[in-house]
């Protein structure tokens, strides 16, 4: 016969076992980010020959942009009475198209690179993905209503004049300083300080997430273990909260994983709402500004 007490301990073991796994996964990811931060800091300095991490300014760029973060999206019309387009990320990529940066009075060439990383702030990417005008919405919506949806490309460039952080190998090629990918990684061009971003993410895991989920599991455990154990109303409340916590901590783990994705891999998604719901079928006044392509 399995008593409430035996089963209660089994249930708590399940709760804490899965909490521990989520903690381990979070700490593993945080350790990867912390190592990356340490690697950048180890190479921080003036852009002398060798592997370097330095701050610079874009002074010239192919086509006006040193690179871009690009996401291919597919849009479909949303449910409900309001006209909306829901965007789904398909492929995200970093494009380093090349140019010249200036750091500590030196000019360095960044050559076009496949497989580099472009990091941009979330605010900047979000701003680039919103519906730019009523005209674009009116163009997108009819295709979004078709089975195959509407495609678009969200492109967030790093233009001339921007401050960037670069991680790569500085080489002297025929008298010209050039930045190439590091030996064990990708060429990084960030329009935000990656050391700060990585540090914040690591600290969030260590100071907020880990203590938070331990506390979250400890509270129902403490309540459930109030005497008479697995019998009293307080213990019952602990059991109920434990079940609720078990169902909530799992999505918290995957939300953290998404939060810790490098900016070059972040999800953009987004929803466009009808900019003029009262006169939605009126003629569009603004021209299309984003590359849209109907698939249906």
């Amino acid at each position, binding site marked *: 016969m399995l008593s409430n007490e035996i089963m209660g301990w089994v249930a708590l073991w399940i709760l804490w076992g899965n909490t521990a796994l*989520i903690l381990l996964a979070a700490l593993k990811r945080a350790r990867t980010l912390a190592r990356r931060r340490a690697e950048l800091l180890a190479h921080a300095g003036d852009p002398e020959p060798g592997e370097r991490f330095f701050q610079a300014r874009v002074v010239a760029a192919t086509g006006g942009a040193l690179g871009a973060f690009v996401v291919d999206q*597919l849009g479909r*019309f*949303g449910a409900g009475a309001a006209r909306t387009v829901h965007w*789904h990320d*398909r492929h995200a990529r970093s494009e380093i198209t090349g140019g010249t940066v200036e750091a500590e009075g030196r000019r360095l060439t960044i050559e076009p690179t496949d497989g580099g990383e472009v990091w941009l702030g979330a605010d900047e990417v979000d701003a680039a993905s919103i519906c730019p005008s009523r005209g674009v919405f009116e163009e997108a919506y009819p295709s979004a209503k078709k089975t195959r949806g509407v495609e678009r490309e969200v492109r967030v460039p790093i233009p001339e004049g921007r401050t960037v952080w670069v991680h790569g190998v500085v080489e002297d090629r025929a008298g010209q300083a050039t930045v190439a990918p590091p030996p064990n990684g990708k060429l990084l061009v960030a329009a935000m300080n990656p050391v700060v971003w990585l540090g914040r993410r690591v600290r969030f895991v260590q100071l907020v997430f880990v203590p938070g989920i331990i506390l979250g599991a400890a509270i129902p455990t403490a309540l459930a273990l109030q005497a008479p154990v697995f019998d009293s109303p307080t213990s019952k409340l602990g059991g109920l909260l434990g079940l609720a916590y078990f169902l909530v901590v*799992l*999505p918290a783990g*995957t939300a953290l994983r998404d939060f810790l994705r490098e900016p070059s891999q972040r999800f953009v998604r987004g929803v466009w709402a009808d900019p003029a719901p009262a006169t939605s079928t009126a003629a569009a006044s603004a021209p299309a500004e984003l590359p849209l392509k109907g698939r249906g």
Partner: protein
Amino acid sequence: MAEEAAELAGAARPWLVSHPAEWRQVGIVATYWCLLGSMYFVPACRNVVFLGAACLFSFLNAVVIHNHMHQGVFQSKTLNHAWRRILSFGALYPASVNLPSHNLVHHHFDDDGQPDWAAPENVDFKWNLLNLIHFPNVAGPNTFAGVQRWAAIGGREEFKRQYVYDNVFMFGLTGALMVADFWTTLFFIVIPQLYGARCILRINIIQHDRCDTTTEWNHSRNFVGRAFNWIMCNNGYHTIHHNRAGVHWSELHTWHQREVVPRIDPSLDEPSMIKYLARTYLLPRKRPPAIDVARAERRSAPLAIESRDVRRAQAAEAGARA
């Protein structure tokens, strides 16, 4: 496939169910409910044997969800919808979720350009046993988040209605049982429910880890033991199920022999799941290295089947009928 359909059409139509073999699935679910009921109402049944059996049958209940959401168990649509509620209670997750998460996304290993929500790559511990244990903690939330996004698209109102009905029934009944007897429900109803739901998620890593999902015939691992497949309603034959989702589960063995065996790497035809689990997760610490399983496919005669896009559309249609 047309020959089989014609043959079936020519045979006497079974009473109530869509195929005579469906009674096995009905029996599995009935046994599961009897086990849960016994433990809930009869204190003497709250023992290791009943709890273990309930956990096993909860997993089988989730297998039935899988089969039912591909092809309805009953002839009547009303009965099929009611059956969804029964199955949802057994797993404490809405059976309707399988339509987008399994039939449309998993069968094609792709969420329209993004990875499958239940891709084995979702876990990456060095100690492989932790990957097996932790996998549902990632694949589960991935699935529900993906389903929320999928359901936000227009034209999916019927899915959302069924999803709500599933939730109302399963949470309503579980909640009512909790009100009547909290601890018994938590320990002897909810634990088996969650065990089955988590095991059916876990089967994704078991069936696809270290396979090549870009190939047509070497994307899945099969477990071909006869007894195993009898109780599992032929869910061991996973490759052919992915490629021919319209084939009834009772016929998968024949199709597997005919189409899969000549094209699959022999290492993906496992005689025993227990031996595979022990060999892969218990004995070694590390994840096994990837091997070129697609070799067998390259050497074999090609077989024309519909593209994954076409099969995805067929799966959507079949799921909507279930």
